[in-house]
Structures are given as C-alpha cells and as structure tokens.
C-alpha cells in the first residue's frame, strides 16, 4: 500500500483503471451467470419460431378418418428435456420454415406418423435403436401391432429427462404392463429398490433389458438375469436341494420364489441336435390349430405321440423332443417374487400325485417373433404309459409317475406275499394229510389180525 501510494500520478491512474475494469468485468460476469444458467433450461434459439405456434394449447391437425394429431408442445417442459439444447430442427429437419405452415405432408394416421418419425432417433441413438430393432417390441410393430411401443412410446421426445425411466415411479413399462407393474410394486425387488442400502435391486429393465427386450422363453432369459445378480444361487441350493442343477434347468425361479403363483408345465418342442426351440413354420399341428385352445381341443398322449412321430420321420437327422419346464401361469404372477424365507421348500408341494403344478399342461412352439405359441394338453399326458418316450425328458418323481406301474407294483407285492402264504398253506395242509394217512397206513399194516 505504501509503495502504491508512493508511485507517480500516471501510474496511479493506470492502476485505478485496471482495478475498475476488473470490478466491472466481475460485476458483468456475475450478472450474466444467471442468464447463462437460464439459457440451459431454455429451448435453443432455433426452437423459438416453432414454439411460437406449437406452444399454443389445442393446436392439432385433422387427419383422414377423423383422427386428430396433437401438435401442442409445452415449451416449459421441452425446456427441461435433454433435447432442448438441440432444438426442433435437429429432429424435424424435414420442415422448411420458409413454407411452413401449412404442412403439405400427407399423414395417414398418428401411428403412421410416429413410425416414420421413429427413424429420426436412429441418427443420434444408433446403438439403442439397433437394440430396439432386435426386440419383441419392434417385432410387434413390424407385425402391425398399434400398441407396441416405438422409441416415443417409452421416451416422450419433447419431455425426456435422462435417468427418469430408471425410477420405479416413472418407468415407462407400466404404461402397457400395468398388471405386472402392480404386482412388481409389492415384490421383494421393489421393496429392496426403495431401500437406500439395496437401491441396486432390479427394475423392469434390470431383468428384461431396456431396449433389446426379448420374449420370455421358458426361464432362460430372465433366469440369466436372476443368476446375474444371484450368482451363488446354485451353490446355496445344492446344500439342501437334491438334483439342484436339474431343478435350475427345469423349474423357473418364480415357480418357487413367487409362492402365491399358480404353476403349470410347458412342454417345448425342442431340437435336441441344435439345442434350439422348434419354430412354428412347417408344423401343421400348430399352423392349422391356432384356435384349438378356444375350441376346447386339447392334445392327449396319443395325439402328442403322433405329433412327435410326424416331426421325427424315419431317417431324419434331427431329434425333435419335448423339453419340459415348470413355470408360473401368468406374467403378473411371475413378478410376485417374495423374500427367500417365503420360498417353497417343501418337496411334497410338487412331488405328490395330484399336485396343482401338474394339472395344467401346454405344448409350445416358437412363433416367428420368438414368442411361444401354446396349445393346451391334457394333464394325463404326464402320467400316460404312451408318453414314456414322448415326454422322456420331463419327469417329477412321484407327481408324474406312470399309473400303470403302480398296478404292477401292487400285483408284485401281492404275488410275492400271496405265493409265499399260498405255498406255505398247501404244505401245512398236505403235511397234516400225510401224517393222518401214515397213521391209517400204519394201523392198516398191523391190522385186526393176519389171515391164516
């Protein structure tokens, strides 16, 4: 300070100017900062002309057939979305502002428009788009299903916030899978996810994936998800469960861990050579009988045997078999997973003749999109002698035993015991008879007297 005061007049003026400049710059910077932050939550400048019209509530376009296409975009909501900074033209590049409105685009329906617009997402989200294209959702879209979700079905492009889909409250799956969502909310996974210590517990996407969602094929896809987190599950089960590895192959996890669920058996038509499911194509019984279930027509043991004989003609290299699975009857029930203390551990629940688990049987085959096409079968197929070869790979000791063998067992036991008792009785009776005869013979030999 003393040295500064001692400096000459010119120097002091220069220094004062420098301080003033610095202070003003700082003031300007501080004043600009809120403005800069406001710009992040504001649509980009390119969006403003669009929102001038599309920000109006009630803006809509009449489509052929009477449908209305909503054209209103909430500017405030859009401003908070991750797309705000890139603006409207980034996705709607086909719109030429010089000639818009009116729009000359021909739009058949809102769905058609959405499907066409869906391809825009590919431009920035190529990897996720590719995953979606491989999913059952995309397969359903290609099939013409108007409810199957496009990108915009789960991620509203004008309101998407990063990470929102990964919360229980905002997961988009609930929009279509409301019944499953309601069950999931009460499950052990949802409860664990709400606990800060176990917030890593899975949401829908944790088990089914977010974009590459595949049809639930027996328990292989979801089972891989279960074992992905519960990697020591097999070791833990082997401590107390006989044939634990076989159970893991045949029984879906929810069959025991969703104790309130109803169980059923699904017999998948399976190519044991290529280790894949057989598809519907080329299997007349499935191509021609889509409505069989509604008609009350079920496959019995003889029909099943005929089906497999048809699929395995003599000389054929492929070995088509039935691969049985014990699973839960409905999707919602399968999501009612409970704490492991409530899991089924009583073997008699399933390994008992008449068990509920084996009263509902379906035969299934893979459809074109991977989803299984099912046909009802009679529960008797599991216990028929005729099915010994047809369902050679599926057997639950006790529960699906062949009834004919029970009759043989009784005959064998009765035969063994009966033959013994019968033979012993005959010996006893003959012995008494022989003893009696010997006395008679002996007394006859002595006689009343000899003839002289």
């Amino acid at each position, binding site marked *: 300070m003393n040295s500064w005061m001692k400096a000459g007049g010119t120097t002091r003026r220069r220094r004062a100017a420098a301080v003033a400049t610095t202070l003003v710059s700082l003031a300007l910077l501080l004043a600009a900062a809120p403005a800069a932050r406001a710009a992040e939550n504001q649509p980009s400048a390119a969006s403003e002309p669009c929102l001038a019209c599309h920000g109006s509530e009630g803006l809509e376009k009449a489509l052929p057939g009477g449908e209305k296409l909503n054209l209103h975009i909430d500017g405030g909501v859009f401003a908070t979305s991750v797309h705000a900074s890139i603006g409207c033209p980034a996705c709607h590049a086909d719109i030429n502002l010089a000639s818009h409105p009116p729009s000359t685009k021909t739009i058949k329906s809102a769905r058609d428009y959405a499907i066409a617009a869906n391809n825009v997402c590919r431009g920035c989200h190529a990897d996720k788009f590719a995953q979606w294209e491989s999913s059952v959702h995309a397969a359903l879209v290609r099939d013409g299903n108007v409810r199957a979700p496009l990108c915009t079905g789960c991620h509203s492009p004008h309101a998407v916030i990063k990470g929102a889909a990964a919360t229980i409250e905002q997961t988009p799956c609930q929009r279509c899978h409301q019944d499953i969502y309601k069950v999931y909310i009460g499950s052990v996974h949802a409860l664990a996810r709400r606990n800060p210590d176990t917030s890593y517990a899975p949401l829908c996407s944790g088990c089914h994936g977010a974009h590459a969602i595949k049809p639930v094929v027996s328990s292989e896809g979801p089972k891989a998800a279960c074992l992905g987190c519960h990697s020591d599950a097999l070791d833990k089960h082997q401590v107390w469960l006989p*044939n634990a590895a076989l159970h893991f192959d045949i029984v879906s996890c929810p069959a025991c861990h969703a104790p309130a669920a109803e169980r059923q058996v699904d017999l998948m038509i399976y190519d044991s050579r290529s280790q894949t499911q057989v598809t519907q194509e080329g299997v007349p019984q499935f191509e021609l009988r889509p409505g069989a279930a509604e008609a009350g027509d079920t496959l019995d043991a003889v029909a099943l045997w005929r089906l497999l004989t048809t699929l395995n003609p003599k000389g054929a290299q492929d070995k088509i078999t039935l691969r049985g699975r014990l699973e839960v009857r409905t999707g919602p029930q399968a999501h009612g997973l409970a704490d492991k203390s409530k899991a089924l551990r009583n073997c008699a629940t399933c390994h*008992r*003749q008449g068990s509920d688990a084996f009263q509902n049987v379906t035969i299934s085959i893979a459809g074109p999109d991977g989803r299984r096409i099912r046909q009802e079968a009679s529960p008797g197929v599991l216990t028929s002698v005729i*099915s010994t070869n047809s369902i*050679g790979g599926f057997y639950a000791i006790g529960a699906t035993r062949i009834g004919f063998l029970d009759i*043989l067992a009784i005959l064998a036991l009765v035969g063994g015991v009966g033959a*013994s008792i019968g033979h012993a009785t005959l010996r006893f009776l003959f012995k008494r008879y022989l003893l009696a005869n010997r006395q008679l013979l002996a007394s006859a030999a002595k006689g009343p007297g000899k003839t002289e």
Partner: protein
Amino acid sequence: MSRVYIHPLPVRIWHWTNAAGFVLMILTGVQIRYVGLISVTSFRTAVTLHNWIACVLIANFFLWLAFYLFTDKIKVWHPELDVKKHFAGSFRQAYFYGYGIFKGEPNPFHVTPYRKFNPLQSMLYQIIMMLLVPIQIYTGILLWNVKRFAGQVDFLGGVRVIDTVHVLIFIFFLFFIPFHAYLGTLGETVTAHFKAMLTGYEDVEEHEASGAESTPDGHAGKA
C-alpha cells in the same frame, strides 16, 4: 446229520447287509414315490437315506464281486453249460417245489461247499446279481445327479425312461424279497437255511456230506 460249511463269513456279511439294504431301499423308495400317500419321513429325508444306503449297497456289491473273483468259491457260480442237464435239473427242482414237496419227497438237490445253489437258484441269482442289480445301480446313479450325467440320460431316452427301468426293477424286488425270505424256510427245517446264513454251516445227511453218492451237480444219485 452232519454240518457242512457252505457260507463263508464275507458272503454272510454281504448277504445280511444286502437284505437290510434292499428292504430300506424299498421303504425309502416307496416314501419317495408315494409322498402323497405315505408320510413316515419327509421327501428330502427319504431321498437322503436312499442315497446313503445306495452307497453302502454299491460298495457291498463290489465286495461280493471281489470275493468271488479272487477266491475259488467262484465255482458256486459256474453255470451248467450242458443245456439238457440244465433244463433237466431245473425241471426236477421246479417239480419238487411245485408238487413233490407237498408229498413229503426229499429235495433232489443237496448242497456242497462248491455247489450250494440248485439250478433254479443259480439261474435267478445270476440274473439278479449280474443283470438287475448292476442296472439298478446304474439307473440309480443317473437319477442321483441327472444333470451331471445328462449325456447318458438323454442317450438312453430321458429321465422318464431311466426312472421307469429303475421302478420296474423295484417292482421285481417287491415280489422277490418276500418270496425269497419264504423260500429260505424250505430247508430240512424251517430255520435251517437261516441258521446256515448266520453260522455258515448247513446240516446235511451223512451220505450227502461225504459227497460219495452225489452227482457233480449236487443231485442225489450215483456219481
């Protein structure tokens, strides 16, 4: 009457271990298969017992096999290769059991240390020990760990086929065990064969004991 030593100690130990083991296997097997009808133990306990007793019986089988392979007592298992003689002896024995025994006729077969099985016994025991028991052991091992032996299980037709074979042999033993126990009472006295399998000694007639008038196949008659 004189006493002939026909059942060496290893054979007696094997026999009674097998007897107890088979009965326990049948009981635990019934509990496993008929869990809805019978509730003596839990399914899991029955499976555990069934597995452990199986281990004992498998070891027992190989002890039996080793005894006969490595001693001269294997002669008791030498088959009658003369088909005519075999059928004649079998028929003679079946005739005795089915008719002669009721008339008080003597047993046509007489035991010796190296010929202790009559033709029917010899045939049946060989079928049991060389065919049925090995198949039962093999199918049982496959069922004990289906996943580990999945290749063999699939090759043989699947777990249902394996289990059906296992159960059919179980059904055979449901018949055989009580009948075998009863046939054990058809000695000189009701308890003669049981005592022999406990002490090793069978009581036989003097001339039979000397073997002078026994044919090589143990039947009464001139040599």
